[in-house]
């Protein structure tokens, strides 16, 4: 993976993001109530919760798009609402749940390179980076197309590419897998994992897609309901004790259910990966 350019100070901070007792409301009722958590360097945090639990709001607050009524958010030790917008651009990659909020260029290539160009990066380096990300997300043959004709899943992958292309320190992704089929979900997780492992990118994924849990067994998890954090821990733990998921209108991935039924020890990573591969194939063929 191509390393991060010198437009981001590479002496990465830790923790990358701190949410300090945040309260937020749009109207009368608070939709986030006393939320506190940290995102460390090399963390992958999955924020799970039913519709309306406040996941999107939390991400927007982390990105400085919304300002909390009480509490503060710090990115690399700086208050996010007081940061220069250039710094925010360098530090944060944001994927909104509506991909059509991004797209305005005539070519997919220009759409993906938008942030890098704004940061004044040299065109050769841009080309390398765009190609790398496009290859990983399997959208190379879309690069010359117009983004306005894309399907929802394709548009989402373009938006993901344009949010990660500048290798930010913190990636905030809201429902990034909505509209993606199983194979594309796996490719998506692949690139997330590599950004995380190779570059130490901290990643926060807000979703109610339980497929992600089966693929991202090693991640941290935060379960939200009605604006409160009701559980925090590791994906692996919550899968062995899925009560919390079920109590919060979520469920466990089919893979895990099957593994439990068959008596396979899914916590043994190798067994589990084989199982996932098999079930993935079945799911993939069902989708086709």
């Amino acid at each position, binding site marked *: 993976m191509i390393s991060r350019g010198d437009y981001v100070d590479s002496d990465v901070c830790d923790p990358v993001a701190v949410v300090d007792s945040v309260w937020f409301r749009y*109207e*009368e009722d608070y939709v986030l109530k006393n939320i506190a958590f940290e995102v460390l360097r090399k963390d992958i945090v999955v924020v799970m919760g039913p519709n309306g639990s406040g996941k999107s709001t939390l991400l*927007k607050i982390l*990105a*400085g*798009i919304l*300002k909390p009524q009480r509490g503060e958010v710090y990115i690399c030790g700086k208050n996010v609402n007081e940061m220069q*917008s*250039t710094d*925010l*651009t360098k530090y*944060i990659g*944001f994927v*909104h749940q*509506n991909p*059509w*909020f*991004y*797209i*305005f260029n005539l070519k997919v290539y220009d759409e993906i390179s*938008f*942030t890098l*160009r*704004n*940061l004044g990066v040299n065109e050769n380096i841009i080309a390398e980076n765009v190609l790398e990300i496009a290859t990983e997300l399997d959208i190379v043959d879309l690069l010359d197309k117009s983004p*306005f004709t894309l399907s929802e899943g394709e548009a989402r992958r373009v938006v993901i590419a*344009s*949010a990660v292309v500048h290798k930010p320190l913190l990636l905030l992704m809201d429902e990034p897998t909505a509209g993606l089929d199983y194979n594309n979900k796996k490719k998506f997780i692949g690139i997330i994992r590599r950004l995380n492992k190779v570059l130490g990118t901290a990643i926060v994924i807000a979703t109610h897609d339980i497929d992600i849990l089966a693929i991202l067994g090693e991640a941290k998890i935060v379960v939200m309901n009605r604006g409160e954090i009701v559980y925090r821990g590791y994906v692996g733990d919550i899968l062995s004790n899925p009560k919390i998921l079920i109590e919060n209108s979520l469920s466990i991935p089919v893979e895990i259910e099957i593994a439990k039924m068959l008596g396979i020890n899914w916590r043994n990573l190798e067994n589990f990966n084989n199982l996932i591969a098999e079930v993935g194939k079945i799911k993939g063929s069902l989708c086709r």
Partner: protein
Amino acid sequence: MSLTNIYLKIFSQIFVYHSEEGFLAKLHPSSKTVLLFVCTVLAILCTRVEVLLLTLATLIILASTSINLKRISSIFISLAMFIAPMVFFMIIYIAISCRSLYRLAETTLSITIAMSRLAVISIAFYIFFATTKPQSIARALNKLGIPYKYGYGFVISLRLLSILSNDLIEIMSIQKLRGLNIGNNFLNKIKNYLAVFIPLAISTLNRVDEITVSLEVKGFGLKDKRSYLYVEPFRFTDTIFSSLCIALAIATLYFCI
């Protein structure tokens, strides 16, 4: 938040129905239409400042039965923010250009009248839209003889306006996060506008498309007449309220003009 965002935020809330309780919310839409009509006529015809201010006070008291005071004051503040610069420049202009104190007082009075008119009309409209269900507005328009297709079109477009301004805020924030606004030359500026308005246009078209399809599959507009399952009763209170409104308005106009 920038000033643009604040304006947009306020604008997005003006046409949104949000109050389900209290006296005004329970009133029949026709009574509220009468109130709206009477207030508008009064504001246009009446030239006496004390009458206008009294009407405004009455409206605020009425509003406070169903809308909480914080919202009412936020509407007032936004109205003030909107007209304050205009008033400010006018006063300065008058102070510089006309020397006589009498003229100054006279013009100040006429500005006050104009502003109270604006306030009365805005608050009357705000009250109407904040306390009346969109469906009821459409139904009331239908009763007045306007085909229900157009009534619904009107109501949906009002709702869409507020969604649109919320979308605009989000899109601006997203593109700013992607590094928009860093370049400063002319070409960049045009590109900046495109980066906001193209996504806005596309997501609005998408929404309109969704609305159209979901209306069409439900057979909307198939027949020129339609029936209603839910009909609000025109209560005794409504009769009294409407008559009172009309009587008061006629009396005021009689003494006013």
